[in-house]
């Protein structure tokens, strides 16, 4: 189970990702407030979900690269079904698209936004939710309306 230090505000239960060499920066760079994607050093292509070889130029020279943290709300759903213990119902699942590359998207949750205020196309920005699990400090990238 996720352990929450008593000095921090309680965070909802989440199923956390298994960390690997390829995805570690994505899930942990939020500690520095950064959203990072694996990117090809040879051709500049953001390779997400991360794989060991660039899908565009087949280079193996890939490294995490920090993006702006901005995004556009591409689509969303207001989820009313209790699939698992987690956020209070209903909660918003969304796909956001990042400005850095056409079609570079993330499935995420929208926070700090009234459901009635959601509109496809609205500008969003990343915010992180911190979880400690054993040795791992994981920062889940969530999105909120741009300030």
């Amino acid at each position, binding site marked *: 189970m996720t352990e929450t230090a008593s000095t921090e505000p309680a965070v909802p239960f989440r199923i956390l990702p298994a960390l690997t060499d390829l995805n570690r920066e994505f899930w942990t760079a939020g500690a520095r407030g950064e959203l990072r994607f694996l990117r090809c050093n040879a051709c500049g292509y953001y390779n997400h979900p991360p794989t060991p070889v660039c899908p565009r130029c087949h280079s193996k020279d890939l490294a995490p690269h920090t993006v702006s943290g901005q995004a556009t709300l591409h689509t969303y759903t207001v989820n009313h079904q209790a699939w698992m213990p987690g956020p209070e119902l209903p909660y918003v699942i969304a796909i956001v698209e990042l400005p850095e590359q056409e079609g570079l998207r*993330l499935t995420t949750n929208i926070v700090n936004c009234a459901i009635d205020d959601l509109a496809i196309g609205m500008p969003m920005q990343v915010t992180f939710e911190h979880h400690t699990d054993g040795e791992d400090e994981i920062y*889940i990238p969530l999105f909120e309306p741009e300030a």
Partner: protein
Amino acid sequence: MSKFIEKSTVISGVGQSAIGRRLFRDPLELTLDACLAAIEDAGLTTKDIDGVATYPGPMSVPPGFSGAGVVDVQDALRLELGWWSGGIEAPGQLGSVINACLAVAAGLANHVLCFRSVWEGSAQGTKGRASTMPGGGGGGSFRASGFMEWTLPFAAPSAAPWIALMAQRHFYEFGTTREQLGQIPINARKNAALNPNAIYTDPMTMDDYLNVRMVSSPLSLYDCDVPCDGATAVIVSHVDTIPDLRKPPVHVEAVGTALRGRPSWDQFDDLTTMACRDAAAQLWGRTELTAADVQLAEMYDGFSFIALAWLEAMGFCGHGEAGPFLEGGQNIARDGGVLPLNTHGGQLSAGRLHGYGFLHEACTQLWGEGGARQVPGHPEVGVACAGGGPLAGALLLTSHR
């Protein structure tokens, strides 16, 4: 002979087990019931069956998702096989049937028994679908990996929200409405009332649809199919064996299996459509027939929106035009519609037989064996389409060549 070798294959027989919300029967028994019924329907015996294909093969998770694998059936019926294949990596559930067509056309087998067997109703029991989600709905030390790494941490473990995201994007781009989408479940329920094997047969009105509880907007409970127990089997045979068959078979006119976009629920290039776009385009490139020739469509409705995407992909209306096409429901009506849709009730009302139910129904209709739900006017051309998201496989079928 045409260069498209699927034209040398036919569907010679179909069969189904008992189907129910929760049967609490041995899933292998259900599987064998369906297989033996299909073999008998084709006028064959187990000695004639020299191939077996299935989707997805043996799996213990999610519970009830697979009732048997190829070798279970091969051993249970003591089959002697020239070819066999089972697996989840395929162009949708009917990809297994298309594999069988290719094997028959290649001469590896003459009569391939294809089956799909589910017992999700019993396996889920009273615990509901959430009990089948990765992590068991409980968590503990479970960590998400693979493609679920990108959805589970956001409490999106089910295809319901994944498809809802696509539906919402379609609504946004094209002005599609819930009233238009709702014609798919309402039509399915109307047809299910005439199907003695359907799960839900009570009439459903537009008010019922609009007022039922939401699952993931814009998808409500009635946009989601119903888990059930049951098995479906079909026999794929070579055209050269037609003299050995009990009845004139259904001909495989063309198949579609393409996957050209990213195999992902959120990275696919256009979230208002799915892999069905590419499978359908490929299918139409393998036949002289066109969408205008099709007289009935049996299309995957694990969620209503998937059937909408198939309608557009197959060209029964333009991309983005399914809303107006569905408006009022007349176009898809079993009796008098330009394109009778899911004439058995689909998975929405006849149960989540997972792809094979659509092929079973298309053949049943083309044989004129639909009973009370038979499409009037002796339809001769139909399609069976299965799979959503990155999964898509389709067959164009004719009652004679």
